[in-house]
């Protein structure tokens, strides 16, 4: 099953490039995971659709959200906890 991670970013967000790098790295490692990057300054409709308030917001496939920038360990932990739990 293909699972998608959504990453909402904006030009004003200082932590976003860093988080984006981590996400790309993790997702490269996992075959059934894809990443959609949405710059809300260009795609405000998407921000509206997903009711995005704070940036960065990461939406995991099970609708779990990570609000705010985090380091690799934290993001891996969340992914393991919410996405891979019971799958591997």
């Amino acid at each position, binding site marked *: 099953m293909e699972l998608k991670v959504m990453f909402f970013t*904006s030009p*004003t967000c*200082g932590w976003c490039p860093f988080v984006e790098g981590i996400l790309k790295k993790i997702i490269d490692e996992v075959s059934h995971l894809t990443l959609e990057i949405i710059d809300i300054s260009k795609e405000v409709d998407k921000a509206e659709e997903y*009711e*995005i*308030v704070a940036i960065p*917001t990461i939406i995991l496939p099970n609708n779990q959200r*990570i609000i705010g*920038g985090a380091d690799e360990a934290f993001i891996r932990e*969340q992914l393991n906890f919410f996405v891979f739990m019971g799958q591997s």
Partner: protein
Amino acid sequence: MIISTGINELDKMIDGGLRTSYCYAIKGTAGAGKTVLSLFITHGALQKDIPVLFISTEVESDKIVEYGKSFGMDLQSFIKSGQLSVEKMTLKPQGVNLVQTERFDLSGIIARTKAKLQKINAKLVIFDSITAFFAEFQYEKTARSNFMDFIREITNEDTVLIFTAESQVAEEYATLEEFLVDGVIKIRTELKNNQLIKKISVPKLRSAQPTHFENRFIIDKKGVTIFRSEHPPISLIEEEKTGIGRLDELLGGGIPTGSVILIEVDGETNYFPLFLTSMYHHLSENKGVIIHSNVHMYSSKIVEEFKRSKSDITSHLNEGNVVFIDKYNRSVTAVEAREMSQLMTTDDMISVTVELMEAFAQAKQKVVLFGDLTDDANILSESDFLRYFALQSFNIKERRAIAYSFINFNAISREILARLRTTADIIIRFSRVEYNHYIECLKSSTGATFLPKIVKFNDTVPLIEIIG
């Protein structure tokens, strides 16, 4: 651009109205009326064709529309015509789980808000409330400090931004947001004479003098009204008395001749004690009393009530000092009376009243007029009713008489009540909380106004007393 709040008295308090590119905070404790006031400001702007974006962080947008409906606003039609957009915005939409860190900004909600406001070309943005909004953040301080960006970006669009914020009861210090905004509108609830009353003030206003006084803030079915809350009277030159000692005192010694007194009651408060006490007093001064009878106020009932209070007005009746103008033929029942409203036109009413006033004047008697306006308000068209009241008031002033006009404020529209209030010189309002009755003065020609005071009813004249 200056946008009216739609509430005259509030406009005056904020230097004429809301300024675009300014941000205002409406502060108040839970249930103070922040949402209701926001709704009225929204509605006021819409009626002047100013598009509004209403962001709700507490409840779904259809709840906001419904809330408006409970005050007679048709917000749905403004949504349809593209003048209003009501949006629910929250960090935690339904069914979503969150983990949060401290490293975020609010560019998401900023971008969405900008898009929404540009779409309808909104000049006014309401954000109700920041308290509920911030409550969803684990790192609330970060959210609050980032909210500055929201304020800056939205007001930069040449709009007015109003946000509501819940204040704590004992909050004396200014909160962060208060430093950021251009104006603070504060609603406070206090316990006075055992009754909860609301007061509104403007403790902060950029580039204008803040109003360092509190006004009375009233929310009822009809919406919100602001009145000066308590003012000492100037002394009167030519005065009459109502016959209710403490009331006269509070009004600065009495009432000027030529006064039109509007007495607002809810449907269940009995205004007869005030009516009869005043009537008795005026009769004792040998004045001529004219009564516009209707189903609530008619000859046999009045005579009966006087008998019960052991006051004799027979001599006044015999001398013709009391005249009833029976507009709706008193022998019929209440229901029939309404149907027979054509018996006498309002113009007939006015001319008969004027003739009587002249007759009393010939006899060197001053005149006092009593009437219950409620039925007239319901039977007549709005314009006829207002014309009738205006004409009547004109004659009262012209002939230096006094009129006591009673109205059930629950039975008339907000607009009509507002017009009556403008015409009236003195506004007395009765209210009730459980078994306690209160009286307050919202307006008077001497400048005197006072907050609700406890009312006591007696079996004999004076049938009504004011405590405190």
